[in-house]
């Protein structure tokens, strides 16, 4: 993707988020040197204050768009980036902070801040793809290290990243994890959630809480009906769909159906 001899330039950007997804890049301890060898880290404030101006070959964008300033900034980054990859639940679905999307923003702001007039925020927290074109999305809260490495390796060689679109159930079955819902009646979002986390919750006996967001064609209504049969009340079903990917349309819609 670059003239020979020149390394591709990687930039890592933060928007409204907790830093956990870009931390995943630093968590690539064994592979970090390989990454530094393969790319020039041109902008990555969590790792180094040394920065280089654009353009960039690959931009990893963490965080949701939740202020007027962020709306402007993401457009500049898009202009400066050949490939823009969003990483994590905030950047791909609006994050936990998207819970405010269905609430009265002014009242919410006044309830949190003593002087709300200084808070210059949007009424909604939205995914990056609502604002600029995104080339690839990595799900998760946080993202999975192996998926990040696969995505970088693929993009650096100009191939499509191999990121499966299957459900969390597929991860359970591949790993040999017993279904917590069928075997124990534990409420689980696995059947409607995209896999990829490494089977983190079900393998320790917990239900999936959907941090990779809805899988394609998520049939949330059918799952919610089954959760009700298992004894979950409307409020707990609403809250289950109101987690880190609450703003993803399929989950937001199911949550809305369980308001009241």
């Amino acid at each position, binding site marked *: 993707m670059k003239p020979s001899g020149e390394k591709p330039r990687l930039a890592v950007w933060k928007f409204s988020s907790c830093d956990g997804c870009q931390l995943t890049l630093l968590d690539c301890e064994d592979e970090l040197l390989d990454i530094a060898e393969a790319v020039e880290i041109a902008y990555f404030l969590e790792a180094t204050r040394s920065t280089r101006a654009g353009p960039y070959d690959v931009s990893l964008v963490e965080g949701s768009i939740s202020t007027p300033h962020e709306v402007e900034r993401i457009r500049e980054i898009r202009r400066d980036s050949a490939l823009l990859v969003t990483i994590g639940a905030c950047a791909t679905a609006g994050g936990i902070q998207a819970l405010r999307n269905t609430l009265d923003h002014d009242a919410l702001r006044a309830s949190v801040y003593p002087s709300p007039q200084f808070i210059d925020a949007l009424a909604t927290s939205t995914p990056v793809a609502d604002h600029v074109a995104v080339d690839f999305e990595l799900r998760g809260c946080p993202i999975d290290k192996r998926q990040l490495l696969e995505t970088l390796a693929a993009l650096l060689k100009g191939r499509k990243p191999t990121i*499966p679109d299957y459900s969390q159930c597929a991860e359970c079955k591949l790993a040999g994890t017993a279904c917590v819902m069928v075997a124990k009646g534990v409420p689980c979002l696995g059947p409607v959630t995209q896999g990829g986390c490494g089977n983190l919750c079900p393998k320790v006996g917990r239900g999936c809480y959907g941090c990779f967001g809805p899988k394609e064609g998520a049939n949330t209504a*059918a799952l919610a009906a089954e959760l009700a049969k298992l004894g979950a009340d409307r409020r707990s079903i609403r809250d289950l769909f109101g987690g880190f990917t609450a703003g993803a349309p399929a989950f937001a819609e199911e949550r809305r159906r369980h308001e009241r």
Partner: protein
Amino acid sequence: MDPAVVIPPQGLDDLIGILDAQGYEVLGVRETDGALELGPVTAAADLPRGRIEAAEAGSVRLVDGPRAAFFDHTLPMQGLKRVVYPAQERLYTTGPDLVAAEEPVEAPPRAILGVRPCDLAALDTLTAVFEGGPFVDTRFRQRREALLLIAVNCMRPAATCFCASMDSGPRAERGFDLAIDELIQAGRHVLVVTAGSARGQEILEQLPGEPAEEADLRAAREGSRACAEAQQRRLDEGVEGLLKRSYDHPHWAAVAERCLSCANCTLVCPTCFCGTVEDRSSLDGAEAERWRRWDSCFTLDFSYLHGGAVRGETASRYRQWITHKLAHWHDQFGRSGCVGCGRCIGWCPVGIDITAEAAALAASEGRSELSGEEI
């Protein structure tokens, strides 16, 4: 066939000891974290003695059974498929020389203690798939040939079982090295062990037991018959034609309203064999690996062809699965793809029942003889 032998329940430990001494890794059904799975067994005490599944559509819960039988439970969550066809495996690695080095096959001798007749039938079905055509999957074959199969004939069905209607149980007629009938009558608890191969016969001769009496053999056969009769679900032979006539049936949309397209049914199915091949490369591009992993016709990517996926809708994915399994499998492999183990019914998170769906299609044609449970 040489005569069967009757051994006391403690004979299971002798059996495990003999297998261990012969160099087999012994795998059996174990209760782990609320479910049955196939895992290493070093003593009869590892088996889920006295436990049974309270299985229904969408629910498989382990509970105490009425008696201290070793084998009143039925099936581990996943069958032999995992053993002969790993969920994911590396096939090749290559480096800058572009020479592909095939990954060696891990195929240690394994003895499977407690294979149910439906899972034996499923292994036979998988063998037809992977070894039956002109291109033999040698990785599968090496693992399969390393198996010693100790069947257990079922004396009690789970509510999800329907092997009797698929002619694949509850009594194993062939395909095993040893078969066990567990008899508990009037305070007497014994295992009737029958050899089905020369290797099995050799092991049988080392077991401390007495030749089986005709009464025990009769009781064993009677137990199987009663188990078949106690099955609550069934699929009719006519299902093949029924599905082939049902391509445009409105019922598919009704199933899709409930179906999560989560792929659980296919991944617990002991005969679903679909896999995908993925290539991975290192960051510097100098090393590459080729992996194979289980795939499912319930994912969107599964039907991706140039330009897009063919089966975008859940209705078309469910139709594809059940029609291949119960109808087109006959054209492809000369048999049904279903052995009636019922895993797809029990382990479906929303309890979609293959026998009930077939029955619903049949009912709409006015053919009530194809009855599943209640529709």
